[in-house]
């Protein structure tokens, strides 16, 4: 087993630790547990980044060097990284451990799925010609940062329907965090779609081919555009907004997983 697999395994265990620290916090309600959570989260992202970097270096040692953003396994690992990254970016705006707990659980799930599922190829594969482009980095990074922001929005949307005094933050706070994560996610998703279009122009000869992934990312984009219009123009708040964010995330899930497994298209190398 290569060293980067071990390091990423450690990162997965750290996500589990983050989860247990949250449980500890909710049972003890000690500030110390809260700072332990954040210290562990910072440590986790360092280890996680190290794992990605080592995988990157390993690919160069194998003489097929490329950034680890090229296949389904690598995208899962990067998705988990992006969620943690987004938590750190939004740290000041989300001082509610229940949100960090749910988001870290999402990271844990992604890491676990990536390392356990027999259908995921974990080896470093050479880059097929279509992927050999500098647009790969910017396209994948923008898309997954957007997905990560939508994870936080989804968590807020779900928590809206959970009544648990002292654990779940007030509803208007959830609503506000939900909006804040969507205004990060939406421009990022836009950038992801646009960089993808520019890349497609150079690689496939057309900036838009109605490939299933393209179509579904557009559907996702429209749902979050509706979210913003509902909130900013029609003044929708709280419950209905929470519902749209849940629907939006279902669409994200379908764009990311569903399209790969159910529909075939130009993006098939991502499976």
């Amino acid at each position, binding site marked *: 087993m290569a060293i980067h697999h071990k390091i990423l395994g450690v990162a997965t265990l750290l996500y589990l630790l983050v989860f247990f620290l949250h449980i500890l916090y909710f049972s003890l309600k000690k500030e110390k547990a809260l700072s332990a959570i954040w210290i562990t989260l910072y440590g986790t992202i360092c280890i996680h980044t190290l794992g990605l970097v080592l995988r990157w270096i390993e690919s160069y040692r194998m003489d097929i060097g490329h950034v680890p953003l090229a296949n389904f396994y690598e995208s899962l690992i990067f998705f988990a990284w992006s969620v943690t990254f987004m938590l750190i970016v939004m740290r000041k705006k989300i001082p509610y451990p229940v949100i960090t707990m749910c988001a870290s659980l999402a990271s844990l799930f992604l890491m676990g799925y990536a390392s356990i599922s027999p259908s995921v190829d974990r080896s470093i594969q050479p880059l*097929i010609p*279509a992927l*050999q482009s500098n647009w790969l980095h910017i396209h994948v990074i923008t898309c997954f940062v957007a997905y990560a922001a939508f994870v936080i929005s989804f968590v807020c949307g779900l928590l809206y329907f959970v009544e648990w005094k002292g654990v779940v933050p007030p509803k208007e706070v959830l609503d506000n965090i939900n909006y804040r994560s969507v*205004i990060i996610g939406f421009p990022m998703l*836009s950038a992801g779609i646009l960089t993808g*279009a520019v890349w497609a122009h*150079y690689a496939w*000869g057309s900036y838009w081919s109605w490939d299933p992934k393209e179509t579904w990312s557009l559907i996702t984009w429209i749902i979050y555009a509706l979210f913003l219009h509902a909130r900013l123009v029609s003044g929708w708040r709280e419950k209905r907004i929470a519902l749209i964010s849940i629907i939006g995330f279902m669409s994200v899930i379908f764009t990311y997983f569903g399209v790969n497994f159910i529909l075939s298209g130009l993006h098939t190398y991502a499976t």
Partner: protein
Amino acid sequence: MISLLGLDDAYHAPWFIALIALFALSLVLCSLRRLALFVKEKKTIVLPEEDRLLKMDLHSYIPEKDFSETLGLLARRYRLALGDGQGAVLEKGRLSRYGVFIIHASIIIILAGGLIGLLFGYRGFVTLKVGETKDRLTLRGKSPAEVPLGFALTCKDFKVNFYPTGEPKDFVSSVEIVENGKAVLGKEIRVNEPLSYKGIRFYQSHYGSAPVFFFNVGGEKVALMEREAFRKNSLLLMVARYESRVHDFGPGVLVAYLDGGEPKATWFLKNVDRLREQDLQGVRVSLNDIQEQLYTGLEASRDPGVFVVWAGFVFILFGLYVNFFVRHRRIYLLKVPGGLLVAGTALRNRGDLDKEFKNLLEEIHGHTP
């Protein structure tokens, strides 16, 4: 029914295009209305009365400070929108108000670019054997048609490189543009590295191998692929079909030709002497060899709208940034008995105006001429 509704090609169906047109129209109307609103709003900036300023979340009374001096201090950071000797309105980040307009206008620009491409562009492909030259491309669509390129494209060489694992690493077509019999440009086309010439782009799309038939037609050497036609004097012939084994006689090709306007066909068998050479319309035709040859498949497209689309992309990203991350805030300054009244509001993207306002007050208080 399915083809009537265009469900087999929904994205080009009339109802789909009509929907997009409707969407674009509503965008135009929305944007115009919003723009009119902003212009009106800009004209009607007023300095609120003292009691309204006092109701604002952020306000502060500053005793014993000079009005014009404080105004000078504020004007370093904010743009003066309105002002007389008694009071002033300053603002910053006004652009944020136009964010929505920029975003919606960009979508219209992108759609317009798409329309330009749809109306004045085309998509097709060119397949070239190594050494072959073509001056037209085949359009994609229900009824394939050919379009002249206005120049010729020669494939000088084609290579596929593989990784040690056996997966393809690189497809490279070395091509040359020939215009008026002269080679004007040579380039290697790779996946992700198209060739652009006179508005037409050539993309490395696929490759393959196909049998090539080497004929001698009336003393002239000709290489033909399946379904390719050739004319010599009054004889028009075409390779209609290839069989790697015709019964037990080895490889053969079915050659179709016109006999006084009447289509006829005859088999040429490479390994049978009697059938290798035949007279067609008085022209001696012989099948000399059959070889598998690599060919390169190039996507070819012309899209004059692409730069309009790119411009739309840049504008929309700028618009999104401005709309969500630029804060539009106003600072009000009013002369009151014994001092000044300063108030601030965020009209969009509230953010950290509290902190900014606090810093501003400290600066005014600490400022000594």
